[in-house]
C-alpha cells in the first residue's frame, strides 16, 4: 500500500465527521461509532474521496513493489524470450547466409599439414581429421541444415493446414478418414519412414525433406484441426455466414487468421524440431550426403575422433544448441504475447 499524502483540510474534515455521525445516528437511531475500528474516527470520512486530484494517475515515484510488479509483467509479456530468440537466430542466420559469399577457407580444401589442429587464430574452431577448416564447414553446414528445416516445415505446414482446415470444418466422415490416416502415419516410427523413403527414392538432397515432411504433417494437421473446431462455431463465423459468406471465405478470412498465432508459434518450434531431426538423420547417414557438410553429418564424423579432436564435435553441437534455443524462445515468446 502506498503512503499517499493525506491532505486533510480541517473544515472539510469537521463537516465529514458531522456527516459520519449523522449517518450513524439516522441509521436506526444509534450513534455508537464502531470503537473497534480506529480509522473510522479519522476526520476525513467519506467526502475525502472527492477531494483527490483530478488526475487518476499516481505520482511516478516507483516503489519497490511496483518495480517488482513491472518486472513480472515484462517476463509475462514474453518480450524477453522474443529478444533472446531473435538475437540468437539472427546471429546464426547471418553466419549461415554469409557463408554463401565468404568462408575463411574452401569447405573441401584439405590442409594435410594441419590435421586436427586445435582452435587458433588461423582456424577459429580448429580443423578436422582431414585438415578442413571446421568454422567454414559449420557455417556452410548451417546453411544446408536450415534450408532442409525451412523447406520441411513450410511444406508440412502447408499440407497440415489444408488437411486440418478441411477435416475440422467438414467434420463427419471426411474428418474421421483424414484423422485416422494421420493417426496411422504418426504411429509409424519416423526413422523407419525415412529409411524406406531414402532406399526407395533417390532424389539426392531432397529425399530427406520428403521424409521429414511426412513425419511433421500429423502434428500440424492436429493443431490446425483443433483450432478450426474451436472457431468454426464461433458467433462471428456464424454471423459472417448470415452475411452470405461461402465456406471457403469463412475458412480463409475468419477461421484461419484466428488460428494463425498458434500456428506461427508451433511452426517456429517445429523449425527447431526439424533441425534436430535433420541432424539425427544425417548422423545416421540418411540425411545430406558427403562431402556437403551439415551439422548432423559433422557430428557423425566427429564421433570417431572425439578424444583426439573434441573441438570438432563442439562447433556443430553449439550451433545446434543455439539455433534450437533461439527458435524455441521466439516460439514461446509469440505464444505468450498473442495467445
Amino acid at each position, binding site marked *: 500500500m502506498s503512503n499517499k499524502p493525506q491532505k486533510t483540510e480541517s473544515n472539510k474534515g469537521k*463537516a465529514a465527521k458531522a456527516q459520519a455521525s449523522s449517518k450513524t445516528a439516522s441509521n436506526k437511531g444509534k450513534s455508537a461509532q464502531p470503537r473497534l475500528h480506529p480509522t473510522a474516527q479519522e476526520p476525513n470520512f467519506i467526502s475525502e474521496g*472527492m477531494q*483527490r486530484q483530478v488526475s*487518476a494517475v499516481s505520482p511516478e515515484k516507483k516503489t519497490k513493489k511496483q518495480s517488482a510488479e513491472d518486472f513480472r509483467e515484462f517476463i509475462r509479456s514474453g518480450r524477453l524470450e522474443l529478444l533472446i530468440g531473435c538475437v540468437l537466430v539472427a546471429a546464426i542466420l547471418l553466419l549461415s547466409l554469409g557463408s554463401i559469399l565468404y568462408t575463411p577457407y574452401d569447405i573441401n580444401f584439405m590442409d594435410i599439414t594441419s590435421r586436427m589442429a586445435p582452435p587458433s587464430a588461423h582456424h577459429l574452431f580448429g580443423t578436422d581429421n582431414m585438415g578442413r577448416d571446421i568454422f567454414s564447414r559449420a557455417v556452410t553446414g548451417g546453411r544446408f541444415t536450415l534450408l532442409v528445416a525451412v523447406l520441411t516445415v513450410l511444406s508440412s505446414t502447408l499440407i497440415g493446414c489444408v488437411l486440418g482446415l478441411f477435416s475440422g470444418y467438414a467434420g463427419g466422415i471426411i474428418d474421421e478418414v483424414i484423422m485416422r490416416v494421420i493417426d496411422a502415419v504418426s504411429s509409424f516410427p519416423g526413422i523407419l519412414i525415412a529409411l524406406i523413403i531414402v532406399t526407395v527414392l533417390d532424389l539426392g538432397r531432397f529425399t530427406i525433406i520428403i521424409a521429414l515432411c511426412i513425419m511433421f504433417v500429423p502434428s500440424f494437421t492436429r493443431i490446425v484441426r483443433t483450432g478450426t473446431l474451436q472457431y468454426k462455431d464461433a458467433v462471428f463465423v456464424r454471423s459472417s455466414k448470415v452475411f452470405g459468406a461461402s465456406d471457403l471465405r469463412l475458412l480463409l478470412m475468419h477461421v484461419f487468421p484466428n488460428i494463425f498465432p498458434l500456428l506461427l508459434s508451433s511452426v517456429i518450434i517445429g523449425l527447431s524440431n526439424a533441425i534436430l531431426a535433420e541432424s539425427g538423420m544425417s548422423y545416421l547417414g540418411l540425411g545430406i550426403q558427403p562431402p556437403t557438410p551439415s551439422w548432423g553429418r559433422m557430428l557423425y564424423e566427429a564421433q570417431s575422433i572425439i578424444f583426439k579432436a573434441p573441438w570438432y564435435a563442439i562447433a556443430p553441437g553449439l550451433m545446434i544448441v543455439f539455433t534450437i534455443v533461439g527458435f524455441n524462445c521466439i516460439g514461446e515468446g509469440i505464444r505468450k504475447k498473442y495467445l
Partner: protein
Amino acid sequence: MAEPLLSVRRLSIGIRSNKKTYTAVDKVSFDVYPGEILGIVGESGCGKSITAMSLMGLLGSGVSVTGGNAFFEGRDLLSIKGKERLHMNGNRISMIYQEPMTSLNPLMKIGRQIGEPLRLHTDLPEKEIRARAREMLDRVGMRDGDKIFKSYPHQLSGGMRQRVMIAMAAIANPALLIADEPTTALDVTTQAEILELLRKMNRDHGTSIIFISHDLGVVGRICSRVLVMYAGRLVESGPSAAILGDPEHPYTEGLIASIPEVEDRGEDLPSIPGRVPSVTEEHAACPFAPRCGKATALCSKIPASMRNVGPDHFVWCHNVHGGSR
C-alpha cells in the same frame, strides 16, 4: 443493528498497467449492518466487482489495494493473509458469482461440492457434512434433492446451478454473503426465484448480503439500502425506497429512466449518453460531468462534497441542495 458488521473505510484500489497505477476504486467508504441487504449499483466498469473481490482477497495480478481498511469481526479484511484469510473465506464471508457454470468444479458431484466449505473449516465427520449438504439442497428450494445430490454441474440448468452456488456459500452459515451479479445471466423468472431465495436466507438466518448489480430494478426489489457507484466513486447512497422513488444524483436518475417500461412505449428511453470512462482515462473532478445534462463549470473543477438530502440519504453532486454539510 448496533455496530456495523463490515465497515469499509476509504478503500482505494489501483490497477497497474503500462508502468502506471490507475485508480479503479477511489476512497470508498460504507457500512454493512447485521441482517441487512446492501445493494451496490453501477454500470460495468464502475468498480463494483473489484470492490467485492478486494474484500475476499481475490484481486488478480496487477490489481492491488492502495489504501483504506475494511473491518470485519475485528480484523482488517484488506490486510489479512494466509491462514486467517482461509479461515475467513467460505466460512465467515462467502461469495457467489455471475456465471454459475464456471464457478463449479465440473468433475465434482453436487453433494460433495456443497460440503467443501465444511470440510475445509470444521472437523465434522464426513457423514455429518453429507447430511448437512443434503439439507442445504432442501433449504435452497431444490426438488428432487436426492437426485441433484448425485449429479454433476453440467446436468443442471443455470438457475439450479446458481441455487447450488448459494447452498455452497451458505452452508457454513457465514455472517456476510457477497453476491456479484448473481442473476444477470438468468431468465427473469429464474431471477425472481433466486432473489426470493436470497431474501429468505437473509430473513431466516440473519445473513447480511452485499448484492451487486447493474439493474436498479433488481436491487430495489431485494435491498434495504443502496450505494450507487460511478467510475470508482460513490455518487449516492441511501435507503432503496428513497433512491428509487426520489433519486437525487443525475446518474441515478439516468439509471432508473433507462429501464424500459410500458409507459415509455413510442418514445425514446431517456438513456444516459456516452459511456463509463475506462480506468486509464483521466476524468474530471466529477467523473460523471461529461455525461451529465446538468453539469456546470463547477463540476469539472471541484469535486462535490457529500450532502445529506434525507434520512440516511447522501449524494455527491453540486447541483443538489439538500441540507448539506
